């Protein structure tokens, strides 16, 4: 028997709400299948399963909020019979032990426990857009009457329920600044109003940053990189591409970071159990700002093996899904290093806070013209300020300097990116 537990979708997550099961008991699942939708302070996520097998009992009902690590379901993977079952460990004991990204990877462990049967929740058939809208509006799907085939709930049904409850659609209701009052309909539906959700996200971010600052002895290095050559290359490359396929400079920066990490692998990994675990794969967490405030840094996988055009496609896809609420659990948990780019707002230098258990973060400011001295001549070049925030437990300034040097070198060879 395997166990499927509430994954930790990042260092700042303590509990998650199971919004919906996408599988039923007895259904065959394969590693990587999305089996549930989970809501955290940062939104709605698609949770994948990490082994092949047949879904057993679903132990947590849609709508329940449980701590990270709580057993959500069992999976029969053929490793044990269905006869005698030892008593299940208490959920909370299993839950709080880990709050690290690898929890997701180990969310399915082949343990010995099998919990006592719980009532099997009926799955509410509903379209993805209906689920998303219901979440945005704070409508409980269980209370919506579906008018689709077999009672399936469509977007229109959620809208009708929202109208009945007096909740406005999000386009009109989404507050840009904190709204002083909360619609009573949302309270009645038992959902936190957007303001409360935002407050929860701020608290989650504060908790993660506090932990990072408390536990990680950061050091910072900064360098100015002349981007004339890569930007010229990009201009020529983009002139051959349709509008939709054009590449933004940030894709070059992210790719160059991945190549530089290959040369300084000590910056690519996790600090765990008082030691550095260098990761062989390079998954770059890319910080994406959410329009309603807050940020998420989902991972672009194997960046070092992608072409720049592919990096751009993946980034675009991630940004879309981050803002649209369709990120997968693995993308939230397996970044091996992070990149934050604040250049869009004219910021020149970013002093990043490392996202535990990662050991480094690269920040990029805005790309702009700067006076540039080279070979005894003064000129004007388009430049970017790159900063490295790194964990002194894992590396020293020397390695950090080697990394920034490699980053510069790769950016100066754009055709090889």
């Amino acid at each position: 028997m395997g166990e499927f537990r509430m994954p930790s979708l990042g260092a700042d997550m303590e509990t998650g709400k199971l919004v919906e099961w996408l599988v039923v008991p007895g259904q065959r699942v394969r590693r990587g299948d999305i089996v549930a939708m989970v809501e955290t302070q940062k939104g709605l996520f698609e949770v994948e399963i990490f082994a092949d097998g047949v879904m057993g009992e679903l132990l947590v009902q849609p709508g329940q909020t449980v701590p990270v690590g709580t057993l959500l379901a069992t999976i029969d993977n053929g490793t044990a019979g269905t006869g005698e079952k030892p008593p299940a460990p208490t959920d909370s004991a299993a839950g709080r032990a880990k709050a690290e990204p690898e929890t997701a990877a180990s969310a399915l462990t082949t343990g010995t426990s099998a919990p006592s049967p719980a009532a099997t929740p009926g799955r509410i058939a509903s379209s993805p857009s209906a689920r998303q809208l219901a979440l945005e509006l704070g409508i409980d799907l269980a209370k919506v009457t579906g008018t689709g085939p077999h009672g399936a709930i469509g977007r229109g049904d959620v809208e009708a329920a929202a109208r009945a409850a007096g909740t406005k659609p999000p386009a009109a209701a989404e507050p840009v600044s904190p709204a002083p009052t909360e619609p009573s309909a949302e309270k009645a539906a038992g959902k936190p109003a957007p303001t409360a959700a935002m407050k929860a996200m701020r608290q989650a971010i504060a908790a993660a940053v506090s932990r990072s600052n408390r536990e990680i002895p950061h050091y910072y290095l900064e360098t100015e990189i002349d981007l004339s050559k890569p930007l010229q290359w990009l201009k020529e490359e983009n002139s051959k591409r349709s509008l939709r396929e054009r590449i933004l400079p940030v894709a070059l920066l992210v790719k160059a970071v991945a190549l530089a990490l290959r040369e300084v692998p000590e910056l690519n990994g996790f600090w765990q159990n008082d030691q550095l675990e260098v990761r062989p794969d390079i998954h770059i967490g890319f910080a994406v700002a959410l329009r309603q405030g807050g940020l998420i840094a989902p991972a672009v996988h194997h960046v070092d093996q992608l072409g720049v055009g592919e990096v751009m496609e993946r980034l675009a896809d991630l940004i879309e899904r981050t803002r649209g609420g369709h990120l997968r659990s693995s993308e939230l948990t397996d970044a091996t290093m992070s990149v934050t780019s604040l250049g869009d707002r004219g910021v020149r230098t970013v002093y990043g806070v490392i996202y535990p258990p990662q050991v480094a973060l690269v920040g990029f400011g805005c790309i702009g013209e700067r006076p540039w001295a080279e070979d005894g001549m003064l000129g004007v070049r388009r430049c970017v300020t790159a900063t490295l925030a790194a964990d002194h437990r894992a590396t020293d300034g020397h390695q950090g300097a080697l990394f920034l040097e490699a980053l510069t070198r790769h950016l100066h060879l754009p055709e090889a990116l």
Partner: protein
Amino acid sequence: MTDRELQSIMFAELQKVAPESDPAGLDVHESIREGLDIDSYSFLKVLVGLNERTGIEIPESDYGQLATLAGMLNYLRAHLC
């Protein structure tokens, strides 16, 4: 296409990336990206949307000409076939 039609396409595309905003409330000479707080990725998305709905090709070197509502409207009007 009339100016009014072009404008409604512009507002619709801007609202896609900034759903809570009121693009019509922007000063026509104000930077769209600053006024609506949209990043370079979202701005590129707006341009893709404009391209799809008007058929107008927008080379990268022209992006700067579409930075304000007035500039965007002028550009689209001038490049309509």
